[in-house]
């Protein structure tokens, strides 16, 4: 264990801990743009610089391990000046359209500019003008808003293990892009949206959230209905409507990972093909009925058959898509109310 002081507070952490993690332990938030606890340390954005007494230069807190007796200042004048300059440099090459940006309210760049009172850039000069990728209806890529933190690249390579996107070119021309700058498509991308999940700015957007501000939604934690992996995620609800899905680091199986189905399925709920009234077939046509009529019809027809042919003349398919509670009740219903063991479910795999 190592003892050190951060902003005048004593901390005791295991050797090998970084300054950033040590600070987090005692509730000190060191700003960062390219750091992510699930990814390899990149140390490229330099937002997390701190002053270490006795060191000549400012140190990046995400990559500097603690030393015994270290004295660290995370918001000293020098530090704040450095951070402001970094932000000003980023803004110099960033569209000034926060007012209409989808990411407003959930953008790290915006948050830190607010925190350090940076409202414009003194640096003027050439700006990027790259075409926005609107080629699919799930993910929008606006490279003009990219701050080159590299998180999307890492997530796509190391967590999703697909490698759709990467850095190309150098210096001012450095970009994150796809092979041959192709728009995202199913041949090169799995549409898992994990890159969107880690992007600190509005460069990568989940289109389903367009028109919704982050503070308008409430989140309901649930389990994915599509495959046996059982990922957890949050349904984002606005005015009694599911807007879309976000991942949560608290998910025990999947962490912040999701696949295309879990992340982008929400319009399934609002398919115009959903049936919302009971139907009874009369003369070969379905006609709308009340629950009372429909359930009475089922109960009486079942009873006639039980009386005439016995309980075993009725059989039920339960569902691998329904909940445990519903499956339990279905077999209970068949075994008690109907009186047969004829219950099974599809896909006996």
């Amino acid at each position, binding site marked *: 264990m190592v003892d050190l002081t951060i902003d005048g507070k004593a901390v005791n952490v295991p050797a090998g801990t970084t300054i950033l993690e040590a600070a987090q332990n005692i509730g000190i938030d060191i700003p960062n743009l390219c750091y992510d606890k699930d990814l390899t340390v990149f140390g490229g954005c330099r937002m997390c610089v701190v002053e270490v007494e006795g060191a000549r230069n400012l140190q990046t807190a995400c990559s500097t391990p603690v030393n015994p007796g270290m004295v660290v200042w995370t918001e000293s004048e020098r530090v704040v000046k450095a951070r402001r300059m970094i932000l000003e440099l980023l803004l110099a090459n960033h569209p000034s359209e926060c007012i209409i940006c989808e990411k407003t309210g959930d953008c790290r760049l915006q948050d830190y500019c607010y925190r350090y009172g940076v409202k414009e850039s003194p640096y003027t000069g050439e700006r990027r003008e790259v075409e926005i990728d609107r080629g699919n209806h799930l993910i929008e890529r606006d490279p003009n808003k990219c701050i080159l933190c590299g998180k999307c690249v890492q997530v796509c390579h190391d967590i999703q293990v697909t490698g759709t996107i990467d850095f190309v070119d150098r210096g001012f021309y450095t970009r994150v892009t796809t092979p041959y700058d192709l728009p995202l498509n199913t041949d090169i991308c799995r549409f898992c949206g994990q890159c969107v999940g880690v992007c600190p700015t509005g460069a990568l957007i989940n289109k389903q959230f367009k028109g919704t501000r982050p503070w308008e939604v409430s989140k309901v934690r649930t389990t994915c209905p599509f495959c046996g992996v059982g990922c957890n995620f949050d349904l984002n609800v606005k005015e009694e409507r599911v807007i879309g899905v976000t991942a949560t680091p608290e998910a025990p199986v999947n962490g912040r990972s999701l*696949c295309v189905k879990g992340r982008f399925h929400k*319009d399934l*709920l609002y*398919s115009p093909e959903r049936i919302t009234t009971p139907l009874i077939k009369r003369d070969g046509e379905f006609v709308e009925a009340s629950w009372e009529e429909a359930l009475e019809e089922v109960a009486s027809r079942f009873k006639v*058959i039980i009386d005439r042919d016995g309980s075993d003349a009725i059989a039920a398919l339960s569902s691998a898509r329904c909940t445990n509670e519903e499956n339990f009740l279905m077999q209970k219903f068949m*075994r*008690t109310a109907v009186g047969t063991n004829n219950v099974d479910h599809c896909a006996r795999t």
Partner: protein
Amino acid sequence: MAGLATSFGSGAMTNSIGEIEFNEVLFIIGSNATEAHPIIGNKMKRAATVRGAKLIVVDPRETELAEHSTIWMRLTPGTDIALINGLIHIIITEGWADHAYIEERCEGYDDLWAVVKDYPPERASKISGVPVEQMYAAAELYAKTEKAGIFYTLGITEHTTGTANVMSLANLAMVTGHMGVESAGVNPLRGQNNVQGACDMGALPNVFSGYQAVANPDSLKKFEEAWGRKLSTAKGLTIPDMLEGAASGKVKAMYIMGEDPVLTDPDANHVRKALANLEFLVAQDLFLSESALYADVFLPAACYAEKDGTFTNTERRVQRVRRAVPPPGGARADWEILCDLSGRMGYEMHYDSPAEIMEEIRRLTPSYGGITYERIEKVGLQWPCPTLDHPGTRYLHKGTFPRGKGLLQGIEYKPAEELPDEEYPILLTTGRKLIHYNVMTRYSDSLLTLDPYERAEINPVDAEKIGVGDDDQIRVTSRRGSVVTRIRVTDKVSPGVIFMTFHYKESPANELTHAAFDPIAKTGEYKVCAVKIEKHTGEPLPAAN
């Protein structure tokens, strides 16, 4: 899961998803995990690329996992048992078996050897098409690595010999001592989100919840007392038997909740005839599915986001499902509909909430005995979880098996029921695609437009023979039916093989497959059947469906 239940006494994924990345060897057979179980697929790829694990992939197609593999055994579809017997033969004769483990934990070794001795590598290779050297390399790598797990999905269970396939994988894991330890085991990856739960809850003809046999007098008595009714001990019908009974007139009525057998069960025409022949059919679902069209009464159900409950995932983890929004219009949760209907049939079922149902499940089901909504509020628990202070179980069969000793069995290879011949020269094999999940995702426009239609995969050699190219349309015909589909020409499949999914109702692959059933598990033979292909000349399919 009949196979694992016979071998170990319990049929579920033995290890946990979180352990996957820490396997040193992953033996992946007939599992296209990156498509069917994407997050597990990612962990497997990550094990290989980031952690340096070695993947042994057994698959007739060059799947994404095959691309990441150290050894890819491209077997002829349907020959798994011959291959596995060959591997066990090598392991035993080379002295790589774990005899101490076999001695202590297993029985039936002599039975196993009596069969396996007739599968020297040369013979196994001839049947499966996998080169002998590759078999040696795979056998050595798997047997000699401590943390080596087996993973399989539909690929291996959806065969007439599915149950036997699973038991032979259990053999392989037991002779090498890869059971009851972390990052190893035999791991079936369950297809649908709650197949595990539906089985656990006793939605099966022969067992109550927690696999308590209806035929066991103690269980019967327990449930009769809890439910206050005399219960039937007559053997219940499995799906194929139900459909058979419906077709023959023995089964008069069916109640289908949240399933679409016309689209998902093999031999769609047979299923349609069976449903049409019923006197009375009730369908309860979100949509008027292909099967629901035959219903006399349709009951509109709430979807997962509109109700409370739990799902049990493939690693036995019981997790919460929460109501986020109200159901549309008059739709109601399945559990509410069941309670209402039961009352009208003269058997009162009253629950204020699914939490109350879980309380009853907990009391009647030993493996769920410690599971309450409070305990799984944040993180789900993995069964067995017998008591309220039990932390749940990450991996099974440590020290002992539920049946005592693990059962080694000699399993003979039997060729698939239908193999290509002169008239139907191509082998059809089916599977899943990432974007879609069975039939549900077709109702999501976002997902459907990403991947709007079936693109059957055929080898360039076969494509050239009938003069077609990428995105052309072909007619695929079997003894049972005929469908039109677009194609993708790729050498991911071998010559003589065509690969289709069963996600699209416009090109329904299960019109072609046949209803030969695994005699034990009653799983349909989706995987292999014989077809012929020709260029489609009639009315083209619509541009996108």
